[in-house]
């Protein structure tokens, strides 16, 4: 491959011929010797390697936090990458100041990651609530401080957000004036505008397509250098459209883009809750829906959600396009009906009309960002106390993400009642075959799926099904 990768790293223009499959983390630390960005786990679970990625699109520049350990260079063309060094000038920033004042560093190894994450929260400009600030550091692990001091520092940062001088202004000039960003950011939009490249056709003659990289770089980081790879980013759709009663989501759409999509919010008002359970913000900023579906994890969170929506996938091989129902995509553990050279271009589903309810539940050991023991989604259409159409899916209870067809069929035409719920549980248990593993025993998973199904009913029909039903 002889293509140059062009991007801006802090204030420097980078134009490199380096292998595009190497991670941004290695490039920053080994090639550029910027060691403020730390290596903690190399799997996107500790946040020590968090950097900012500024994406220039349609004349605007937006910064997101990403895990540099899972981000291939091939995915950052035309972006502005900011490391802790790029945020540190003579004067320390308000975020750094808050950390120092509250004693939020102990050994300090995780600190740059936290600083970058909280700076990302301020740059996002979305909301001034504390919860968002905490969400921004949800993917950062600190083994020393106990987080209390970090939360106090985060509270201070939230105060900055609400202060008059800042008041949520996210234009770069204001951010420079408040000391959050160094002066060189002023020229970044213009510099990035020059770097933008036209999307190219996807090359089908490849061994592996790379989407966001957040699964692939955990599973086989070394292997990717030895095979032919093709980056999908920038070449496949990243849009969320509705037309003719159909919603289509481009395969390159990130989790966070879905999480903040007004269309999806209007259809599924609780969507933020689901995504918060699914992955940390830096992962959501990189992970794509196409990658998640194709990764074929039996417990893939978005797959479970889309199964309940009766979604289909649109596959493209460059020469041929075809459509396949999602529930027919998986043939066994981690195997699926996608042929070599085919990539997932869109996922689509019919936008529900009439009265419907949707719910997603996930139980894992830790309260957030854990791989689920069991997860489940439910979509019910109903009218006057009767379910007219139902679709339930479940993960972690079979080798493939499972559409619970018998339970779904059974529910159609049934009254919303304790009896229906109880009967559904019985049928559900005949459809699953959970195994015992790190995440719990098979028996526990069976029990858990029952609880999740109850939770669906309680959450969707709180007037009829009460919480006591869980007992």
């Amino acid at each position, binding site marked *: 491959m002889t293509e140059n990768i062009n991007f801006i790293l802090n204030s420097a223009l980078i134009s490199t011929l380096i292998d595009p499959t190497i991670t941004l983390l290695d490039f920053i630390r080994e090639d550029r010797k910027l060691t403020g960005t730390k290596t903690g786990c190399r799997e996107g679970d500790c946040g020590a390697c968090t950097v900012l990625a500024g994406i220039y699109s349609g004349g605007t520049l937006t910064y997101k936090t990403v895990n540099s350990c899972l981000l291939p260079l091939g995915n950052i063309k035309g972006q502005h990458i900011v490391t802790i060094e790029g945020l540190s000038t003579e004067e320390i920033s308000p975020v750094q100041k808050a950390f120092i004042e509250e004693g939020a560093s102990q050994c300090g190894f995780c600190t740059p990651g936290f600083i970058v994450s909280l700076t990302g929260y301020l740059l996002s400009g979305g909301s001034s609530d504390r919860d968002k600030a905490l969400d921004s550091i949800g993917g950062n692990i600190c083994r020393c401080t106990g987080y209390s001091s970090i939360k106090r520092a985060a509270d201070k940062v939230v105060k900055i957000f609400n202060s008059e001088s800042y008041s949520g202004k996210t234009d770069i000039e204001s951010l420079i004036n408040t000391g959050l960003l160094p002066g060189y950011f002023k020229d970044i939009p213009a510099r990035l505008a020059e770097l933008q490249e036209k999307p190219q056709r996807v090359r089908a003659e490849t061994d592996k397509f790379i989407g966001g990289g957040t699964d692939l770089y955990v599973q086989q980081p070394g292997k990717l250098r030895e095979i032919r790879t093709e980056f999908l980013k920038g070449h496949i759709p990243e849009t969320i459209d509705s037309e003719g009663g159909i919603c289509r989501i481009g395969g390159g759409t990130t989790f966070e883009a879905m999480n903040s999509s007004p269309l999806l919010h209007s259809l599924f008002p609780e969507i933020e809750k689901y995504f918060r359970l699914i992955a940390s913000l830096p992962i959501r900023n990189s992970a794509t829906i196409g990658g998640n579906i194709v990764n074929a994890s039996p417990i893939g969170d978005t797959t479970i959600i889309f199964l309940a929506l009766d979604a289909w996938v649109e596959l493209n091989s460059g020469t041929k396009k075809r459509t396949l129902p999602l529930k027919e995509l998986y043939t066994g553990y981690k195997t699926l009906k996608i042929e070599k050279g085919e990539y997932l271009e869109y996922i689509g589903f019919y936008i529900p009309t009439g009265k419907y309810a949707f719910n997603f539940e996930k139980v894992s*050991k830790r309260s957030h960002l854990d791989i689920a023991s069991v997860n489940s989604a439910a979509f019910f259409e109903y009218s006057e106390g009767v379910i007219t159409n139902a679709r339930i899916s479940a993960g972690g209870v079979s080798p493939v993400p499972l559409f619970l067809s018998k339970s779904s069929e059974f529910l159609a035409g049934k009254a919303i009642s304790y009896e229906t719920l109880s009967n559904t549980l019985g049928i559900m248990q005949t459809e699953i075959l959970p195994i015992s593993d790190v995440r*719990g025993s098979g028996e526990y998973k069976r029990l858990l799926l029952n609880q999740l199904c109850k939770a669906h009913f309680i959450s969707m029909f709180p007037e009829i099904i009460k919480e006591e039903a869980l007992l």
Partner: protein
Amino acid sequence: MNKKEKVSVGLPDNLREIIIEIPEDEPKPWDGKSELNYIGKRVKRIDGIDKTTGKAKYTFDVKIPGMLYAKFLRSDFPAGTISEIDLSKAQKLKGVYSVLPAQDDLPLIIRYAGQEIAAVAAETAEIAETALQQITFKHTTSDFVLSVEDAIRENAPLVYQTTVKEKTTEGDLDSSESSVVQEGNIRGPKIFPEDENAEKFDDYLRNCEVIHTAEYRTQVQTHSAMETHGVVVEWGSDDKVKVWASTQGTFSVRNDIADYFKLKYNDVRVITEFMGGGFGAKFGAGLYGIMAAKLSRATGKPVRLMLDRKGEHLSVGNRPDSLQKLSIGTTKEGKIKALKLISLGTGGVGTGAGTSGPIKNIYDYEKIYVEESDVFINAGPAAAFRAPGHPQGAFALEQAIDEMAHKLGIDPLEFRRINTTGNYIRQTQYVLGAEKFGWDKRNQVPGSIKGPIKRGFGVANSVWYYIYNKGFVATVTINRRGEVQVINGVQDIGGGIGTVLAMIVAEELGLEPDQITVKIGDTDNGFGPASGGSQTTAGITPAVRNAAYKAKIRMIELAASILGKTTDKVTMEGSRFSDGDDISKSLSFQQVAAKIPGDEIRVTAERRSDNLGREEIKTTIDGVQFADVTVDTGTGVVKVNRIVAVHDCGRPMDRLTLESQINGGIIQGISYALYENRILDRNTGIMVNPNLEMYKIAGARDVPQIETIIMDFNQAMNSTGAMGIGEPATIPTSAAIANAVFNAIGVRLRSLPITPDKILAALEEQSK
């Protein structure tokens, strides 16, 4: 020559005056009446800017021209023998400089999956990785054992054919154990008291009016410091060796390297500018340090050997698991008569699974009997881990205490109170903690709350010890420009010792902490403590204050000569020196410093024994924690809402960093209680979760509201009066949570971690 001083000791609202004798060259100890500018206040870290801007250089970040990257080849089977290793193919790869076997002579016996077989040093990490795959070896595999239960069975495969000596580091409590026997996979038991007769004791226990006996289990926890273990070694052509190490004991790394390679201590220099956490696992050079040194010697180039996350989980330490059978015998009124503990635990191929600290040292009792044994299994070695043995011991003891209280119908806190009557620190802690926590609002009948979401309160005690070593040498210099520095070899594990040293010197000289240059983390800087046993602060601070005091005396002498007075006429106000007869005549610190003959004042002071010849100094560090949890009985998920922690740690130095250590201990305790667990595949012996994806550590969202009460307990036993806190704070948390879970749902969870499936299973068992 000694001098006498009157000092105020005890808790702030109950101070007593005593007369102590101290050496002539030491200052009067800080005591309960000292009014200080920095000590005991919340002082920001002196390295805050370095840490928040990414400038702080860790061993992981060291880059030296020509440096090679080294990696280990590890076994993927848990037991067997390697008879031949072929390194030639790996050696021939371009960019590979050296390949060495992990052990000089063959055969190499493999005792756990993940054990090191060979190491490669290459131009890049990637080449090293590729080279590892080119190493081939001939081996046989053998049967293995992965749990205590399997290992103690008759005819179980033996992990060792040889007798194992206990390996202790500065992180372990001193244990003298010459008479320990090893039979099969069991090393032990160690019996306490040594002369106790088990049958006689059991008779005594049987005759107690009320008896409780139960079995408790804890899991294996890995240290999981954010910076992995590792070193960069530069073996000079003059056979002088420079080592950058991520360590909590710079001198122990130096000693290991010098001993192994038969070098002079003076020719090995170990540097730890910043280090990313240790928690007890980072003492000594480790095999990684020895191999890096061998590779550097062989290649003539600096070699970096930092472990990856997987190697970290597998091979450099963990907290042993435990299976503890515990009995308590009391009177009807609830007075403890007898305590008995039979403890088995495994540190994998390592030792150190004892759990008896808490049972021996918290409660009053008439008789005690302890048997504790290490059991070997085919898993990675244990290492000292933040209060070795104590979280395990407390989990069992403090639940058993709770169960006994329940059996007797006595409030669990009251039960603790009446069985620790001789300890006035604890008695005070119970009152302070209960009030802050709102203990009286607790659900009186466990499990009685209606609805699926149940809330409960629990309490648990902790114990640790006031430990310090002697002979640390602190240096303080003042130069002609009035610049001050404090110098010692001690490393900052993260607790903030550098900041504390600056505070102490600033306090003594009337300066501000950021005016003091701190040079630490280098064995060339004078002997300093290892950060183990919570003794860093207790170990080094008296030497530093004493050195600063000596420097101050020299400055006063100099001021006296400038003022033309005798030293007793010179008074010091802040950093100014005045003529006691005429206050208007005064000199600034800089004015006096300018007259320093030559270049600088350089004084050293040594850590001596605490002052002797006085009433006994209290040597336990006591603590109590209260937990408030909710249990979702639908999903089994436990959420910790609040922890109130009351701890004694002598005289607090920096309250900000101290509080942070307590918070950190608590969150590690929560993580231990609910999430962390090393899981070995029972078919292959391979760790299933050697990452941070499935080995779950508590995150920011899992943290409850934590409130700490730090007791200012002055003993004036030396010039600073500091004791330790690193370990104590993590000891009682899991037990307090377990007790709170019982209070919420009315069912006991006697096994860690308390995962949702265990809760649901326990609830189901109860409903049967």
